[in-house]
């Protein structure tokens, strides 16, 4: 508060009318930011408090629990099966993320630097996928995968996710490789490096930020994907964590502390990855990445 007067004098002309305007302007920014942060955090805090309440107690929205009842978390983990669900989510993400990142990197590299026949048309064909909603692929995916025996399996869901994630990944990696200096690629080629060696030895070592961002986005999308696992994995015990949470809500919606604890367990891994790689995630989303 004390700093207000000193900074206003530097940011605005000295006339008294505009000084009061500048003071309200100085205060408006922190107030707006505080309102935004509160709006985001209050629902989270409310859920966190609910998860610590004793099971079965009548609850009102924002109330301090009498003591910390962590048993809701252990009940959600073992009795409600969220430990198993979390494991299937991890397995799916471990299949999807590396495979999708490698495929997107190879394609983005080829489209940006190699002589691809029909390059423009192939790229346009891939970009078309950015506006295909999951709703319009999931019906045949279910019937065709069931015919092939791929429903209720990890490969079935993983392949469906990789297919859906390709357009953004190729777009992202192509844009990245297009910004790399042509002279670097040409020098490597003159030295007799193959296209493969150019990619792995020359370009990829300095591409770590772009690849990490794509990996983080893919992880978050794969973890949060709901409709595909809901349909393609009909066996409730094998579902991914969010799909299991959806199923659980329908069955035990009334046991609020248990549901709140389960929700926090499901979002914990993705929030941790986000906090660790937030710069990457934010830069990816700001460039227009939203899926699922």
């Amino acid at each position, binding site marked *: 508060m004390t700093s207000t007067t000193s900074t206003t004098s530097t940011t605005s002309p000295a006339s008294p009318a505009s000084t009061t305007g500048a003071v309200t302007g*100085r205060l408006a920014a922190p107030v707006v930011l505080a309102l935004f942060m509160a709006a985001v955090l209050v629902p989270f805090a409310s859920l966190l408090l609910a998860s610590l309440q004793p099971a079965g107690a009548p609850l009102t929205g924002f109330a301090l629990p009498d003591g910390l009842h962590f048993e809701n978390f252990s009940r959600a983990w073992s009795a409600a099966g969220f430990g198993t669900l979390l494991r299937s989510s991890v397995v799916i993400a471990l299949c999807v993320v590396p495979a999708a990142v490698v495929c997107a990197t190879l394609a983005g590299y080829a489209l940006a630097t190699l002589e691809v026949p029909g390059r423009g048309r192939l790229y346009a064909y891939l970009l078309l996928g950015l506006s*295909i909603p999951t709703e319009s692929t999931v019906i045949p995916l279910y019937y065709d995968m069931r015919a092939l025996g791929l429903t209720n399996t990890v490969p079935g869901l993983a392949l469906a996710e990789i297919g859906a994630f390709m357009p953004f990944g190729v777009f992202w990696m192509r844009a990245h490789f297009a910004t790399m200096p042509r002279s670097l690629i040409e020098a490597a080629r003159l030295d007799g490096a193959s296209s493969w060696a150019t990619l792995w030895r020359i370009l990829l070592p300095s591409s770590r930020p772009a690849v990490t961002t794509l990996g983080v986005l893919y992880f978050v999308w794969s973890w949060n994907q709901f409709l595909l696992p809901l349909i393609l994995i009909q066996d409730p015990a094998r579902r991914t964590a969010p799909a299991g949470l959806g199923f659980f809500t329908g069955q035990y919606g009334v046991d609020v502390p248990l549901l709140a604890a389960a*929700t926090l367990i499901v979002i914990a891994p993705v929030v941790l990855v986000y906090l660790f790689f937030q710069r990457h995630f934010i830069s990816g989303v700001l460039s227009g990445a939203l899926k699922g």
Partner: protein
Amino acid sequence: MTTADRLTEPAPAPRTARSAKRGAGPAVHRRPRTVRSGRRRRRAVALLYLLPALLPYTLFAVLPLLHTAYLSLFDWDGVTLPSFVGVDNYRRIGTDPQLRAAAWHAGALILFFSVLPICVGLVSAAIVSRRAGRRGTALVRTVLFLPQVIPLVAVGILWRWVYGEDGTLNQALRAVGLGGLTDAWLGSFTWALPAVGLIGTWVVSGLCMVLFLSGTQRIDQEIYEAARMDGAGPVREFTAITVPLLRPELAIALSITVIAALSSFDLIYITTGGGPGNSTVVPGILIYRLAFGGGAVGVASALAIVLTVVISLAVLVINRLSREAP
């Protein structure tokens, strides 16, 4: 087809080159030949790089989409033999009241998912960008992006609790003496749709604000100073400088949020399931219900195709508008 044509196109050339130089020694005409076949090989190799991306994309995104288009021409319950009905399913979308309600609700969601967050984001970014210090910006960004990170299912559960009869919202209303206004928000025919819509506003407002804030940092401060010299107030500054110069960010925000509004499923599935009655059904919910419970795979497919076309058109229009000179 075209790729194959282009691959084979250079093939006849070496032959004519060789016949023209018949008399020369083999070492002379070997060279153009290897250059050409090398080029051919390079192009084939380039296609190999694309294959790992093209294959899953074609098999698990494009072909299913085409298959959906095919299924939309049939009357099929998912079990017995399908019967061809032509465009009847599409005709039903225009007349069936439930399907038309879904279209209306998707439009209303655009208001809550796109228009409202973009307005909130623009105004707040304009206010915040006038702040001199940058302290705490990283923390603010981290918190405002949180709703983007967690699965929409979890967002739905979060807000079920906020909107519940004993939830946080009603408790707050009672605390300020407005107990008469409390409601079971998600179970109310009047309030369910706006309540769900506001969850969407909550999810994307922070994203819009951070997006516009990073855009305003790109704008040259001298433009503002010049405008201030000319006597422009904060409102004029906002409408004449900030908004027009944020055009690229506006395009990104619009396409992200419009796609999210039109293809919404997770959030509504968890919070209301489309109810009460049909008061919050959206295309995504109807496609799910009709195809995987209602035994109307054909109609669901037709609805999915219409949804895809509408989304593609919306993205196209937004990109066109953003490229036009301000």
